[in-house]
């Protein structure tokens, strides 16, 4: 377990990206240590994560991760199975709270507020940081009620016509309106898999979050449905910050502006997507994207 011990050594502050790049690019030798390389930080971040560790009981799942989420960007998180990218994603809206054995240390700020501070209530937090899951999980209710669920529990509307409007705009933003406008009272589960996932995205944006977390949103979809959802993600970027966990590197390359590579609980490299996929700084990143493992 040499990797583990070296990872435990404190590595913050991380090498500031540009500096590291300039050093690395001169020589062709790749970085091999487990410190984050690349450009994890941005100037005016929406979310700021510093030295985040996640434990399940005694087992450490995430080691010392520091990264920013920019405004109006799609940040892709890639890495082999079990590398902790989904775990980290679920820290960003405290969905890990539902797992009793899970413990998170370090700081995660949303618009400058620590979301793990004892005074922070998870309910408004999750309204600001929405989530779309791997498997489409529409509620067993009508399409209308699925979208209206969030606005209703948060009391966002005064009357029925306002609610109708939210439902319509959300479905339009999710590109689903034309397909379901005539059958809003049908159960959400009657839709196809791709439509269900877009319904879940519409449900998430109905409460106007700032950040949307997507945990492998296309892994249960066929290629055509995937293409539609990817297009949708690109459009949503104009209004939201989006963090996408994905197994498909092609997908990360297509939809994201920045990509983060996770490996065994460490954040190995963060950089502009183009750069990660053409000229990665770290040996592990290169091994992964060239298909040597993972």
């Amino acid at each position, binding site marked *: 377990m040499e990797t583990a011990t070296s990872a435990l050594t404190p590595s913050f502050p991380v090498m500031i990206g540009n500096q590291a790049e300039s050093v690395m690019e001169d020589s062709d030798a790749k970085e091999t240590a487990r410190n984050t390389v690349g450009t994890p930080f941005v100037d005016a971040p929406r979310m700021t994560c510093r030295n985040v560790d996640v434990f399940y009981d005694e087992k450490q799942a995430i080691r010392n991760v520091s990264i920013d989420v920019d405004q109006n960007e799609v940040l892709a998180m890639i890495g082999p199975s079990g590398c902790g990218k989904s775990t980290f994603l679920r820290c960003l*809206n405290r*969905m890990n709270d*539902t797992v*009793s054995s899970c413990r998170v240390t370090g700081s995660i700020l949303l618009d400058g507020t620590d979301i793990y501070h004892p005074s922070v209530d*998870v*309910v*408004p*937090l*999750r*309204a600001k940081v*929405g*989530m779309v*899951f791997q*498997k489409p*999980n*529409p*509620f*067993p*209710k009508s399409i209308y009620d699925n979208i209206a*669920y*969030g606005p209703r*529990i*948060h009391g966002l509307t005064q009357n029925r016509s306002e609610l109708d409007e939210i439902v319509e705009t959300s479905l339009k933003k999710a590109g689903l309106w034309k397909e379901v406008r005539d059958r809003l009272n049908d*159960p959400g*589960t009657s839709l196809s898999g791709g439509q269900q996932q877009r319904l*879940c995205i519409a*449900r*998430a944006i109905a*409460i106007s979050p700032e950040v949307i977390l997507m945990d492998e949103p296309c892994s249960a979809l066929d290629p055509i449905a995937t293409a539609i959802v990817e297009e949708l993600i690109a459009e949503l970027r104009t209004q939201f910050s989006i963090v996408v966990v994905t197994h498909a590197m092609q997908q990360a390359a297509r939809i994201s502006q920045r990509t983060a590579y996770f490996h065994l609980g460490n954040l190995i490299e963060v950089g502009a997507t183009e750069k990660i996929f053409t000229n990665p700084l770290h040996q592990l990143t290169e091994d992964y994207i060239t298909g040597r493992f993972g």
Partner: protein
Amino acid sequence: MSIYSFTLPVIVFLALAAYFAGYRKALAVAGQSGGIRSLHSLPMHYGLVAAMASALPAITLLAGWHLAEDKVITAIITGELPKQLAQLPASELSLVLNEIKNIAFGGFSAATSSPAIQDAAVRYVELERTFRTIITVGIVAAASVPPVFILKKISPTLRARNLMEKALMVFLVGCSTVAILTTLGIVLSVLFEALRFFQAIPLVDFIFGLQWSPQTAIRADQAGSSGAFGAVPVFAGTILIATIAMSVAIPVGLLAAIYLSEYASPRFRTWTKPVLEILAGIPTVVYGFFAALTVAPLIRDAGSVVGLAVSSESALAAGLVMGIMIIPFVSSLSDDVIHAVPQTMRDGSLGLGATRFETIRYVILPAALPGIVGSILLAVSRAIGETMIVVMAAGLSANLSFNPLTAVTTVTVQIVTLLVGDQEFDSPKTLAAFALGLLLFVFTLVLNFIALRVVRKYREQYE
């Protein structure tokens, strides 16, 4: 010696032998034609077919004889009886035959009986012995001859597996038929007795009558000679007590289930659930005296403090205790169905910023509704069918009252009181029990039907 103590082991032994012979034969056939894979089925299947060919005819014969034995021998004995006995009317003849059988099996001493009957008894024993010898030989033959033919037929093309599967299906169909036929039998037996009752008392009087006093006097000139068979007070009592019980059991059980499945730690849940289920294991008699000796006086005393006249046997006492008894039915089953709602539903709701309670109220409960209603239905049927607690705590008097502080009675209690002791099965008093049973059956049937429709309308189906 019973016929089974010898024949059953023989059948088992022969069937086992047939199995191994079939297995061996299949292996041998496989060896000649190029390995096990050249066979249509596994050697085991050939063995099982051979065993079936052995056991099925033998068991059929045994069962057939078991059913027919008494009739066959009796017919022969009756034919051989002296004229003056054989020509007796049917009811007296059956007495004679009973006497013969009693002597034959050593129940009576033969000394007081007439010589003809003694002879017949000897003949009975003799006949039985002869027949049993014949049948035993027949069974051994039936268990050993057919497998020989099967063994000869074993070849790589014999579709033994398909035969097995078919036999298995027939067996399963048989099992489900038993359940259906039993239900049908119960319904019909109740129905026919009830019809006899309705010949004496008109159906309308029974269903809409407001007076229930089935204890008819023996002589016509006594008071209450006609009896009154209006079922309304009895059903009113049933509904009253069941309603009280359900208004205890549904909230407590459902909320306990929600706590156990959504809030409690897994460790707490694994400990608490069985403890709660112990409530269902307490005999109802124990609940009965708990209700009669503890709860009923408590309610009476509490009532007298606030100036209410409470009888010491009250619907409230019986209903409350019955409700406690039913809690585990609601809680345990509801807990299971709530637990079965996929985690993704909870995640989806929590991820939208819903609180735990909102998630339960708007997502979990609607999704679990069919199961919850199912558990409630089961509890209602328990409440309606419960007898012991009511006998002990609510009394026997059929008051038509919806005041829970008075004594009432229920359908099941009345059925019990009508049928205990020596009864004549041709008086309306006794037959009324069957009419009550039939009406109760229809009542629960309608209840289930309505509940199913409600569930179909409101359920939210996940996947």
